[in-house]
């Protein structure tokens, strides 16, 4: 049982190392999915805005991580 729980924990750890990064990425994905089509953004730019959001989240996470590591 412990081995199974250990494996499940490791599988979760595949995707989530820093919880705040994972939560921010998921929230931005959901927000982009629901909000970007409603905004007056030209086709082709919605994907670029999605990418810029991910880069901003990674950059902010790295900045915070280097302060606390």
């Amino acid at each position, binding site marked *: 049982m412990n081995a199974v729980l250990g494996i499940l924990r490791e599988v979760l750890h595949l995707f989530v190392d820093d919880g705040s990064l994972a939560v921010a990425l998921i929230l931005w994905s959901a927000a982009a999915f629901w909000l970007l089509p409603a905004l007056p953004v030209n086709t*082709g730019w919605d994907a670029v805005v999605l*990418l810029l959001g991910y880069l901003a989240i*990674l950059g902010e996470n790295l900045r915070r991580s280097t302060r606390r590591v």
Partner: protein
Amino acid sequence: MHQVSAALAAFLASFVEFVEALTIVLAVGAVRGWRPAMVGTVAGIALLIVLVAILGPLLALIPIDAVRLAVGGLLLLFGMRWLRKAILRAAGHIALHDEAAAFARETAQLRSAGASAVAHDWPAAATAFQAVVLEGVEVVFIVIGVGAASNLLLPASIGAGMAGSIVVVLGVLLHRPLARIPENALKFVVGIMISAFGIFWLGEGMGFSWPGDDFSLPLLAIVLLAFSLAAIPMLRRPGASAR
């Protein structure tokens, strides 16, 4: 274009995972004998084959946009996690991964557990089994993640298969962990490639159109690479050397 990217991403990512699994299996073999190491390895591979046999047909039942959203989201989390760690390592904020140290740590643990008095050394076999399953699940996820969203399972599988073959041959020939492999540089590249795939599939799954269509995937990788290379010197800890 995507076929080469999928094969390369699966090859590099799987190579890293196979190297990590090999380190543990070698430690088990060197300390507790090759029989339990092989029993654990074969049992782990058998479980992974069952997993693929169950998951593969299930994926075909799900609508492609849903697969792209789900797989893209998981690839994004997986890739960004690797990329974040690779950048922090390159900037000197966390220690580099060291296979030789991992091998030494694992052999010390196995030795301290003592030799098994029974004919079948199940704890040693379980150690090898767990390593093969854990690293193998990552390989299965990478192959399915990179390949399933656009019928690229074959090139992704070939890439992972080649990586596995090379690592097994090197392991059999050398009988020691592959400590000279530039694992952190590989993880940096893999983090970029997997993140690029994840962002691309998420965008496609959301119904967004990428400028340049198929050519946007390598462009995404280039943007992520440029972002990461720019971030490293800005985040570098004073006194840390460039890696």
